[in-house]
């Protein structure tokens, strides 16, 4: 089977089907990555833009990497950044109504939801780059070096960011509390 790098090379010589074959290997992973970041609806809107951007920039692909998935994550992240930039007033603001009261009628309905809310609160306090590295490693199963490749930063820097992110999470009161009690 041809490597991703070989398929990209063939696409540069005019074989567009080779590029589609390469995309098909990773579309589920990239689609889920987008959905985790911006929700399913926006992910569906943006996915085509990601493929088009990847195709337009394939000449810059470093063919010393046989596996293209980290590169595609990088393209996807750039598209998300562009999406957020271009929609200055259409991103969700903090839902202050939910934070207004301390009465919660649903404490036992879905503990998982609480876990998610607490974790997201802690994640929101991380620096952007820390959060990116953490997400790529924890959710996308990339190595730290691959996460660095996605973000165009040295592997050592990515390792430091991951370390900082994990420490900040551990030290966050919400996460510390979660780590001390059984969760579903």
């Amino acid at each position: 089977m041809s490597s991703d790098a070989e398929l990209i090379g063939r696409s540069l010589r005019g074989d567009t089907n080779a590029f589609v074959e390469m995309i098909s290997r990773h579309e589920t992973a990239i689609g889920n990555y987008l959905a985790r970041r911006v929700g399913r609806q926006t992910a569906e809107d943006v996915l085509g833009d990601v493929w088009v951007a990847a195709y337009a920039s394939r000449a810059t692909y470093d063919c010393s990497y046989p596996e293209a998935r980290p590169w595609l994550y990088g393209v996807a992240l750039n598209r998300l950044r562009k999406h957020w930039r271009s929609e200055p007033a259409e991103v969700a603001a903090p839902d202050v109504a939910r934070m207004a009261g301390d009465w919660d009628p649903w404490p036992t309905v879905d503990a998982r939801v609480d876990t998610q809310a607490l974790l997201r609160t802690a994640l929101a306090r991380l620096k952007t780059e820390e959060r990116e590295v953490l997400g790529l490693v924890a959710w996308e199963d990339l190595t730290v070096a691959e996460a660095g490749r996605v973000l165009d930063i040295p592997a050592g820097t990515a390792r430091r960011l991951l370390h900082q992110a994990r420490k900040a999470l551990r030290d966050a009161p919400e996460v510390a509390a979660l780590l001390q009690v059984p969760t579903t």
Partner: protein
Amino acid sequence: MDEMDLMKKLRDVPSPRTDAYDSARAALHTAMAEPVSTVVRPKRWLSWPKVSVAAVGAAAVAAAVVMGTTGTSTPTGDPIIAAPQVVDSALVKLASDVKAAGTLSGDSSLVITTKTAPDGSPYLVYTVYTDKGQVFHGDSAKTLQAAAAKGDDAATQYDANVMAAARLAATGDVEKAKIAMVNASPNGLGLGLSPAEQEKAWAQNYEVTAKMLREIGKQVPDFKPRPTGKELEDVINNRLWSHTTYALFIGAANADIRAGVLKLVATIQDVTIGKAQVDDQSALTLTAGPSLQGGESTHVVTINADTGLPIRSEVFPVKDGKPSAARYKSSRVNLADVVAGKI
């Protein structure tokens, strides 16, 4: 269990649907078949359509949206051209003050935008817009420096168009500037053309849209005539509002851009002006109600009452959905300082 195990609990989300993958591939096939054109900023009029059409679709999608909101009456002329009167003298006076004060030293505008990403996390956008028309983006001072140092110019034709229109409003003919601002992104309205040419442009735009939709397997909406009267005025003013506020958000630190934006906004009758106090600053609120937002939301832009610099932008949906907000900090900088990491 450690923090990484907890993180994995956030991993499961609803995946994109099968037809979304098909549409995405169709968009790729379209892009591979045709030269990639500039993707312009979508209007805020309605949400970005579900079809992914980055390569050829921006103009066509705008047309499709417009066509979806049109009536069936006979064209009677364009109110934006017929009546380019200025309706709020407070904004014009502020524009005059801004223009008189002149642009501060430096060769670029730096705008730092704070938003909330869809996952609830804070998100910073650093944008440098140079007076020469280059645009550099970053999500931190460091990545902004990297983009500027690499010359990673993200300027689009759309950026150039809205800036040129704002400058024209500040220094020249406001009526022509309005047309230029509305036409900053492709559309089928044909503003500035004769009635016959407008009808032709409208029909041609429909054909472009229909072709694109057919190529990606989507249903082609029935043709509707070009809107007229108040409906046309709302469509035009929606674009005018959307494009001028975009110009303000990326180029605010340039006095000409700011003055031009204020003059153009002052011509939109349905924008209401209010006074407010924000973060110990005297502020003006510019409110574009639902008639300017496709009936879906109210958009409020808050600017400093003395300088015209943007402070924040908020959208309040009419029905469902959360309000959204972005905050802005603008300053003049030198590109060389950005490249050198001195900001």
